[in-house]
């Protein structure tokens, strides 16, 4: 059952130098309990997609398209209408646990205010819920830690609080924006396990935004690859890792350091991310692509295919 349906999402930002086309014609669906990864390098527009769903884009953003949830287009919803959906139906986990929590407020209060507001709980009951959800994200001694301030927690513990905030109303969808990027590798694994367990218990749909392909392989079923604000490839995780079908995806996978690589060299994709000051008219990856042909500079490839969808005019067999 499709919960969330994003259609032809375009996000532009007006700046003094002109419009930046951050997200171009992105469409995807999210079903109940599905775990989808949205992968791309910095600036590819992945966080902006999540923020547009929450209605939290910066003021200079111009957004078009549709984000359908329960028959409502969230892009056209008023702030009051969105406030009925935020946290209750769709929650977001933010990237940096150091700055995502209010440093002047006890963590317990930052959790309990959510259920006080949305479920009309009394202060006492809301505190009990806060303890429960802190225990659910495995914060030891939750009852005592309720009255601690964010700076009294380690980075990993703070990220658990941020996750607890997203979970406390048992939302149908969680948008996790790089939930482990700011953390140590060992803590990363713990947090991803935790998310995985909770996701299974609550049958929540998760959109995992990341640039870490290792995290994707361990957690998700489906992957969407974003480049220059355009969808390059949509596929099952297994298929993507076994036989990536888009030149950009191939480049990404080659860039993951491999311990069996005897040369000891690191592989980078040559060139730099595209300038997004103009709406794309050709494949945005063409300037950095190994397999570029003349037509690539003239046509804007659309996503095509059945199980694996790809936006590339060349057949898979023709790629190097």
């Amino acid at each position, binding site marked *: 059952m499709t919960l969330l349906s994003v259609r032809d999402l375009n996000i532009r930002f007006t700046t003094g130098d002109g419009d930046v086309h951050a997200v171009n014609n992105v469409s995807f669906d999210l079903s109940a309990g599905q775990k989808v990864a949205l992968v791309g390098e910095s600036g590819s527009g992945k966080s902006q997609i999540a923020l547009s769903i929450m209605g939290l884009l910066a003021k200079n953003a111009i957004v078009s398209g549709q984000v359908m949830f329960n028959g409502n287009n969230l892009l056209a919803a008023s702030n009051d209408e969105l406030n009925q959906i935020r946290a209750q139906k769709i*929650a977001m986990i*933010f990237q940096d646990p150091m*700055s*995502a929590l*209010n440093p*002047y407020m006890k963590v317990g209060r930052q959790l309990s205010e959510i259920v006080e*507001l*949305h479920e009309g709980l009394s202060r006492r009951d809301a505190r009990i819920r806060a303890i429960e959800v802190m225990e659910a994200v495995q914060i030891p001694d939750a009852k005592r830690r309720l009255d601690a*301030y964010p700076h*009294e927690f380690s980075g990993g513990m703070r990220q658990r609080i941020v996750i607890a905030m997203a979970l406390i109303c048992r939302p149908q969808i969680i948008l996790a924006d790089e939930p482990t990027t700011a953390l140590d590798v060992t803590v990363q694994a713990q947090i991803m396990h935790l998310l995985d367990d909770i996701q299974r218990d609550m049958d929540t749909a998760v959109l995992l935004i990341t640039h870490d392909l290792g995290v994707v392989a361990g957690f998700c079923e489906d992957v969407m690859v974003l480049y220059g604000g355009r969808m390059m490839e949509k596929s099952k995780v297994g298929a993507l890792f076994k036989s990536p079908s888009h030149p950009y995806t191939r480049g990404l996978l080659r860039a993951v350091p491999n311990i069996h690589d005897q040369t000891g060299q690191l592989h980078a994709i040559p060139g730099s991310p595209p300038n997004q000051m103009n709406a794309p008219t050709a494949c945005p990856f063409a300037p950095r692509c190994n397999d570029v042909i003349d037509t690539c500079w003239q046509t804007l490839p659309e996503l095509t295919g059945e199980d694996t969808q790809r936006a590339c005019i060349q057949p898979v067999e023709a790629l190097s």
Partner: protein
Amino acid sequence: MLNYSLRRLAFAIPTIFALVIFAFYLMRLAPGGPFTSEKPLPPAVMANVLERYGMDEPLYVQLFTYIKNILCCFDFGPSFSQKDRSVNQIIASGFPVTLTYGFWSAVFVLICGIPLGVIAALRHNSFWDYLMTGLAIFSQIFPNFVLAPIMVLLFTLSWGLLPGGGWNGGQWQYIVMPAIGLGTSYMAGVARLTRGSMLEVLNSPFIRTARAKGLPERTIIWRHALKPALLPTLTYMGPVFVYMITGSVFIDVFFSTGGIGQDFIDGAYSRDYSVLLGLAIIYCVLTLSINLVLDLLYAWIDPKVRDAL
């Protein structure tokens, strides 16, 4: 917290001592003295006067006697220029006046400045924001010696609403114009400062988190944004309050409030060592206490500071 306050009070004592010694010697370095006049006094009379005020002794003995009198009897000595008045009397009559309208002026600065700043930030880049910022800049550069006569012209002479000067035991009618005259430019400063810090806080990631919780805008402002946005204002208000009390000379003179600013000016002109020194000590104690109150307020707002205490 109590421990910290006591420690701070203990540190205040050597600070006050250092100030007394420094100010004592510095004043004596200035040319002239309390009894210098165009027509010099006959040497015999001068010697008598100096002896009467203990000024025939070496400086360090005078300093010692001065400090001893304060410590044992809380006696700041006689005024050198105002006959038959002691420094204690001068301070007792003038300081409460200055402190009273200084306090109400600070209240005016805060209850007008903070809301103006917050509203300007919430209506960022709108007509109201520009109006508020424009007014703030205007009143910040508007000197009180221009503002005070205009107020008197309007409120006293034209409309007859408020008395043009005097104190009359501190009835509210007599406090309004001194308080506004003293506070207007600081009020504008607070408004601009609050606007800036509010804008910064509203753009911070933890406010975005609060929005993602679906909290209504009102709750976001009051519960999440206001406290951190007020920290810079608090920092600004400490020295400003001290400055308002000590720098109220013009207001005291213009509105004839009988405040302490007038005594300070007179004392400086006539080299009235004991009045100047007494007032310096009062200002010093005031500054130290306000700084302590500020630090405690900081600790109340910011849990990180609290842990450091």
